[in-house]
């Protein structure tokens, strides 16, 4: 456990904060711009303005951008080890391989959480400047962001595994994008979307009425697809990275 | 008169405010093996990058084969082969495929690939992926690529990096033969004189971006002033005596050392020591080794 915290600190120090922050900000800023343009559209009469704008902002962000960026960040936090040949250095230190895997996974989860926070932050900024901030129901948007974060975890684990495997930055991204593309259809299909891991962030982030629980995810999907998928990819990646040869 | 292959005039390069290469005048003649020496960070790679047009000089001019590099880059580069710092390669391709990529761009006949593989003794490993090569093999592949276009000038930046002693020896023999057998001129950089001295005909020494010596190995040897060693009993007392005579001496464990002396001066010191009943059992002139000269040159005023 000590190994893990030491490594986590080291990983955190290694991150190029400026780069990460800029990459994290691009999506939320652009989505919010789309949200801004949506203000000039006809807002359906039965829908409060704040929820309409949230929906428009969220659409662009969660549909494909968020799962794909998760892949970019996974590749990014493994890039240094690949290009500088630092894996072999890392694994010659007297630390357990599992804690290396665990610390990378934790960092990636932190980054995806930060992405959600920045997304919410930008949305609030838009709301304040456009003067509808006081109407926002905080529980709804916070739950949406939190559910989105939980829903992206299988992608986190799988992309981390794939990024450990390939030296090239592009390859994990090719895989991630190819798997994300079906979202275009599955997100609209009731038979398919509960089962497809890449469309979970979007489904989870659709704002739900206040009274539903902490997570806006169907229990079946939550336990089978999200937790099941996460455990499978996380365990697979863990077994693989702790056992393979590092050259 | 032999032709000049490389000539730089007042070559200078700055990164921001720091001057990394300053007023360097390289001069390399045809058929020479020119050793470009200097400690790490002296500016060797920066100079070589300028010679290849990878980066631009802040000031000064570069002529290769008597032509201006800036104006006739392409026709000049046709006649140059190079290996800069770490070797460049496509890890997912085999050694032979890597050479084939370069061959296609250069437009040389395909049998040349086998020739250069043979030259650097990689024929055995030709069909292995380069990411499985050892560091030394990658380095040799880099040299094979540099040789592919039958260059007249070969520029090698620290080619022995990562090689074991026998590899270094092999590389040295290999480079030595190039001018004789293929009429090439070679510029080879290194931070170790010992690697260069047995093959280079000319050396240039660079330190903190400034060229501090350029000439033949023999003229480098002449740079050193020999010192005199007196083997004397009771050296400390004897040294005090000589010092009181106004001579600058130093005591080391194997005797008393002075700067080089004329015959009279030597005779005088010996006589002096003997009259004061010191036993003098050895007097000799000691030349510095090249390595010591090099270290002496490069260490002087190391901290500015």
């Amino acid at each position: 456990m000590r190994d893990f915290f030491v490594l986590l600190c080291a990983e955190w120090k290694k991150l190029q904060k400026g780069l990460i922050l800029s990459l994290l900000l691009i999506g939320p800023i652009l989505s919010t711009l789309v949200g801004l343009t949506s203000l000039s559209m006809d807002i359906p009469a039965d829908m409060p303005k704040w929820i309409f704008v949230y929906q428009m902002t969220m659409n662009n962000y969660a549909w494909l951008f968020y799962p794909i960026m998760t892949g970019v960040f996974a590749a990014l936090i493994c890039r240094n080890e690949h290009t500088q040949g630092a894996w072999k250095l890392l694994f010659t230190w007297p630390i357990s391989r599992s804690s290396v895997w665990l610390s990378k996974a934790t960092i990636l989860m932190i980054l995806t959480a930060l992405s959600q926070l920045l997304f919410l932050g930008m949305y609030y900024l838009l709301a304040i400047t456009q003067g509808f901030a006081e109407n926002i129901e905080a529980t709804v948007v916070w739950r949406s962001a939190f559910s989105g974060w939980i829903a992206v975890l299988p992608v986190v684990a799988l992309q981390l595994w794939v990024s450990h495997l390939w030296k090239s930055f592009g390859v994990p991204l090719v895989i991630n994008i190819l798997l994300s593309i079906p979202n275009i259809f599955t997100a609209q299909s009731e038979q398919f979307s509960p089962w497809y891991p890449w469309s979970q962030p979007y489904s989870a982030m659709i704002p739900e009425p206040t009274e539903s629980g902490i997570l806006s995810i169907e229990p079946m999907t939550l336990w089978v697809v999200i937790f099941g998928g996460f455990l499978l990819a996380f365990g697979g990646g863990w077994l693989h990275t702790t056992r393979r040869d590092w050259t | 008169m032999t032709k000049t292959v490389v000539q730089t005039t007042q070559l200078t390069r700055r990164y921001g405010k720091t001057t990394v290469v300053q007023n360097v005048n390289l001069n390399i003649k045809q058929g020479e093996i020119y050793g470009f020496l200097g400690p790490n960070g002296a500016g060797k790679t920066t100079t070589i990058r300028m010679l290849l047009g990878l980066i631009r000089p802040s000031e000064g001019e570069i002529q290769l084969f008597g032509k201006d590099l800036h104006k006739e880059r392409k026709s000049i580069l046709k006649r140059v082969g190079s290996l800069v710092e770490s070797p460049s390669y496509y890890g997912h391709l085999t050694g032979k495929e890597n050479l084939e990529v370069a061959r296609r761009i250069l437009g040389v006949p395909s049998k040349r690939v086998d020739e250069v593989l043979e030259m650097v003794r990689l024929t055995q490993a030709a069909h292995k992926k380069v990411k499985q090569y050892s560091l030394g093999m990658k380095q040799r592949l880099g040299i094979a690529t540099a040789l592919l276009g039958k260059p007249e000038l070969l520029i090698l930046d620290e080619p022995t990096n990562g090689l074991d002693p026998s590899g270094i020896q092999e590389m040295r023999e290999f480079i030595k033969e190039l001018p004789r057998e293929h009429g090439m001129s070679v510029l080879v950089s290194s931070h170790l004189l010992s690697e260069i001295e047995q093959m280079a005909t000319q050396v240039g020494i660079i330190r903190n971006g400034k060229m501090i010596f350029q000439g033949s190995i023999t003229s480098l040897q002449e740079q050193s002033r020999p010192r005199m060693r007196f083997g004397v009993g009771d050296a400390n007392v004897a040294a005090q005596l000589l010092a009181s005579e106004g001579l600058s001496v130093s005591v080391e464990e194997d005797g008393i050392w002075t700067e080089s002396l004329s015959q009279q001066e030597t005779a005088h010191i010996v006589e002096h020591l003997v009259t004061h009943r010191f036993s003098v059992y050895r007097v000799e002139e000691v030349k510095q080794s090249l390595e010591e000269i090099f270290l002496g040159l490069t260490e002087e005023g190391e901290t500015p």
Partner: protein
Amino acid sequence: MILRLLGAERLKMKRTWIIALLILGPIGIMGCMMINFGLRGDYFVRKYPDDLTSLVMESRMLLYLAIPLAGTLFASLLAGMEHQGSTWKYLFTLPVSRFQIYLGKAIPLFLLMTICAGLTVPALGFLWVWADLSGTIPWEMIIKSVLYPTLASLPVLALQLYFSIQWDNQAWPLTIGIAGILIAGGISKWLPWAYIRNVMPLDIGGDNDPHFWLPFAICQGVILLLIGATIIMRREVR
């Protein structure tokens, strides 16, 4: 000269994911469309006036994401290959003008996109038969709806190629590309990523106009390519 560079480029692609993407891309598009028509085919009959419109409109959604995404990935893979083995510095010491080296990447990028498009056309033709749509296969419309967006992606290709060569950390070009594709189109129709949508041969209530946008996109693509090449030609290589 260019032919020799292309020959070299061809060899470099051996055993890379570029080839995989070339084949998986069109197959993926077909697979997605098959699922889409399989699941929602009945609904399309009600939603669109005829089968031709439903094919074009539904594949449109996919194409205007898949085409620029493929371009972004191809550009990154082509440039990343050189960053990875630090071969830029080697390429730039060859007796070839830097402009040609740049073209030696731009042309393969465009060819890869053309091949992908070429494979997508029969894939959509197959879908027409598979989904049991009425009438003969509307080849002309299928070709147009694949070819136009591919050509309209030239500005995006030029930008992505430049970014991928400029930065050795591919996180940058990929993020910009992905953000552009997914979001920029919704912000303004004048951003390069939007052209791909603007040139669609058929639309319902959209402001598509291939006659204006196609020449516009191609010209802009060429200009951006030249600008990118000029910047890279002047750049120092480490």
